[in-house]
């Protein structure tokens, strides 16, 4: 579960060098290799009426990306890191998944989707599709809320929001591997209000106690690995409470398991992990369950 190689997927507007630098704290864990990926959407270079395939536009976009990547790569090479690059024309989702497989990457880092809401509803936003299809964790990077600056280290104070799914339990292993980077982890679980409605006070307290005990066992696991950990139980709407908890814990990153629901169900019923990735103000790392 070491993060030795990360794929840094950027269109430059949403994810820049400051974000990359903040991730270099992972070097004190096990990061050795960064692979830059820039995907030129086909619609930007292909088939306009009377023009056909616009080769010159492809060259311009490629070279623009190349100049940025060379600059970043020089910085990383000088620190003794290994660097790779992909500048490709195609669909963002399939190119990222393909590059992840080719490179055998341990983590995908991507900025938040900028597609308009209506387009996202019909096609599914790119970030959501990547989260659904990736076999490795996906970090949806966002700048510090309200300041637009990159965090110093997103992994400094992660908050694990667990629903006890396979993905969220797998997240524990990833966080433990980052013990040299993480200063404290907050572990939270949200009990939905509908679960408690109509029950007696005793029964509600029992729910809280049971949830708390389960969280404490996770905290013990973190502490055994040398990471300070605190448990918190929240009650209410999962997305809203996770966001509230992140604020209260001063989290630098929300970590959760990605949903195991099928794509159609996520689109129509909704998915808490995808809502966090899309809407939360905090950087979010979603960990998929182990794929056989």
């Amino acid at each position, binding site marked *: 579960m070491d993060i030795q190689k990360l794929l840094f997927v950027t269109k430059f507007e949403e994810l820049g060098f400051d974000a990359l630098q903040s991730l270099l704290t992972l070097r004190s864990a096990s990061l050795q290799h960064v692979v830059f990926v820039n995907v030129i959407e086909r619609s930007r270079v292909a088939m306009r009426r009377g023009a056909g395939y616009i080769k010159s536009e492809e060259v311009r976009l490629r070279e623009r990306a190349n100049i940025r*990547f060379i600059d970043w790569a*020089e910085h990383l*090479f*000088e620190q003794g890191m*290994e660097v790779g*690059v992909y500048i490709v024309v195609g669909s963002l989702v399939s190119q990222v998944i393909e590059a992840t497989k080719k490179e055998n990457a341990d983590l995908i880092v991507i900025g938040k989707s900028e597609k308009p809401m209506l387009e996202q509803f019909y096609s599914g936003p790119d970030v959501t599709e990547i989260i659904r299809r990736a076999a490795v964790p996906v970090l949806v990077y966002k700048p510090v809320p309200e300041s637009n600056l990159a965090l110093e280290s997103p992994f400094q104070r992660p908050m694990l929001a667990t629903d006890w799914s396979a993905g969220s339990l797998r997240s524990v292993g990833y966080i433990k591997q980052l013990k040299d980077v993480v200063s404290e982890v907050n572990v939270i679980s949200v009990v939905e209000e509908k679960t408690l409605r109509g029950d007696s006070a005793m029964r509600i307290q029992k729910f809280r106690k049971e949830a708390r005990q389960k969280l404490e066992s996770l905290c013990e696991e973190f502490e055994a690995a040398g990471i300070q950990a605190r448990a918190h139980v929240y009650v209410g709407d999962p997305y809203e409470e996770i966001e509230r908890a992140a604020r209260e814990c001063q989290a630098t990153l929300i970590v959760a398991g990605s949903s195991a629901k099928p794509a159609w169900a996520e689109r129509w019923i909704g998915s808490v992990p995808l809502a966090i990735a899309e809407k939360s103000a905090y950087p979010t790392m979603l960990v998929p369950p182990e794929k056989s």
Partner: protein
Amino acid sequence: MSKKVLVVDDDPDVRLFTVTVLEEHGYTPLEATNGEEGKKKIKEESPDLVILDVLMPRESGVRLYRELKTDAKLSKLPLIILSGIAKKSFLRSQKALTEFGGDPVPEPEYYMEKPVEAEELAATIEKILG
């Protein structure tokens, strides 16, 4: 028999340019698109010269250079680094890797920053291969 030159570069335009220069000057070009493939071709084809890019997928030229220079059988294989990465950064990368516990490696004898003129490249190849 003409001498074999392996071009390791992920950019198809650069490969095309370099292969054309090589063919025009009577060499046999071989191609690889990344460091990993390059290493395989070096072992299989035993080229007389390698023209190596630095920033590539799978395995960069920084690593491949290091592997070649620390391999007893391949350390004398002539190399031209042809890259957009500044020579200063390449040298610092090798120094950093040595500091992290690797073996020291010599500086590359021929380092050319992209883009390069065909005549300049041909003259350098000629100088190495005679």
